[in-house]
């Protein structure tokens, strides 16, 4: 069940990567190589096996519901590549009612 370049392009869209044609070509080969490796797992009978999502089971622990300070807004905004410190937000291209 080999992937085609078009399918890889779709995966790129899902992953939000603007891949070049070269990359699509390379990833098609590399992913198909890996899928061949993955196919080997079908040799194992896992019909009656429960999946392990965490190796060391821990009961869900609830933290005390205590009001604590969070990071100050200025400290969070200081990390942003483009911010509006007066409005107190991150600047992004128009999302709603896009004209393009």
């Amino acid at each position: 069940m080999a992937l085609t370049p078009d399918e890889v392009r779709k995966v790129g869209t899902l992953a939000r990567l603007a891949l070049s044609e070269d990359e699509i070509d390379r990833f098609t080969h590399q992913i198909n190589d890996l899928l061949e490796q993955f196919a080997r797992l079908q040799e194992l009978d896992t019909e009656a096996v429960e999946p392990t999502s965490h190796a060391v089971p821990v009961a869900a622990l609830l933290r005390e519901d205590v009001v604590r300070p969070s990071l100050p807004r200025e400290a969070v905004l200081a990390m942003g590549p483009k911010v509006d410190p007066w409005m107190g937000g991150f600047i992004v291209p128009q999302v709603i009612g896009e004209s393009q």
Partner: protein
Amino acid sequence: MAELHDMTAAQIADLLAKGEASAREVADAFLARVEAVDPKVRAFVTVTAEKARAQADAVDAKRRAGEPLGPLAGVPVALKDNLCTAGVETTCSSQILRGFVPPYSATVVEKLDAAGAVFPGKVNLDEFAMGSSTENSGLFVTANPWDLKRVPGGSSGGSAAAVAAGAAPLALGSDTGGSIRQPASFCGIVGLKPTYGRVSRYGLVAFASSLDQIGPMARTVEDAALLLNAISGHDGRDSTSVPRDVPDYRAALTGDVKGLRLGVPKEYFAEGVSAEVRERVLAAIEVLRGLGAVVDECSLPTTDYALAAYYIVAPAEASSNLARYDGVRYGRRTDKVGSHVELFERTREEGFGAEVKQRIMVGTYALSAGYYDAYYAKAQKVRTLIKREFEQVFSRFDAVVTPTAPTTAFAIGEKSDDPLAMKLSDICTIPANMAGIPALSQCCGFDAAGLPVGVQLMGPAFGEETLLRIAHAYEQATDWHTRRPAL
């Protein structure tokens, strides 16, 4: 007196306790060593000399005031650059995080800071800890101190190279599929991946959350135990950290392995493991037998499938964890901003390196509609099989002994065009991550080219004390750990 940079953390702590050196002298000695060797080794992404000196001065002031000092007070610890450090750039060796200065520190960093440790700087890794050589670093490649034309291993290659080069007596690494143990093996030092949940992951930039674990890297087993003491324990900020008492790991170093049952799983000595590695590891097993350990063969047949399952689970989790890098809240943003979707796509395309993109692609595909059961769910079931198999083996054995990596350090560039060959270098280390169990690598000799060989000990969950005890006994009986690369 030996040079400070040749000393172990325990020896340095002892000197400081006796007042024979100040923390400032220690910090200056290691910063001078960084200046002398790092142009060749290139382990450091960021040197934080000022911060280190300030931390050292604070330790000295405390001592003058007669305040109690922790066992790591004044001891330098290099930090892998995927550990968040408040006020200090944390790059993950990725262009997408260039310039990222976190507003908080990882729990392990806070704990070490509180214990009085001194941070000389942040060290290199394969981008987002994805790789086995540091060649995937988005910044530069680190060299192996034993042979500068070879890789130090990865992804914690900067941590391993820094310790082997004497640029720091201790370092923290992180291990998702062998990223502490394989570089420890390539650089001839001790590296321990603790049981999943032993150490808080809060502030560790996430790669594969169900596999990642932070652990100590050091020149000796005693030093690794000291560092593990300082970083272990439950943390309310990491719900997967385990609420379980932390023993004094140094107290486990009794030197006595008489009667301990050691399993030798034959699958780890199969084709692909170089003759020299096999020979050195078997010789190490004979040393342990000579010390009174009871050695027997065992079998872990699912080992063969661990690599394939890992290369589904790890990329799947990575694709999800790395979705947060969108050029909006932190890190770099593309200059070519169009629509908001183009902002995400171009930022990610420009910011991530080839290996990271490949894994995001594999993971996205494995989690996409219609394929989840065939890949991710199947891999998680295989994981259960791997885990069960280890549990069965550990009902008969206290630990198992294997090579850490199938070969010694390879040349820079040798495998960078062959992703599959690169991935095979993790074949002996991945199963411990899949099962969540602790595993340790230490030096057990050198090959004909003078490169270190690593032996790996794996134990049942929370069996760190036994692993450290065995490794310490082996270290006492041999002198590999006293050798230093000529730099």
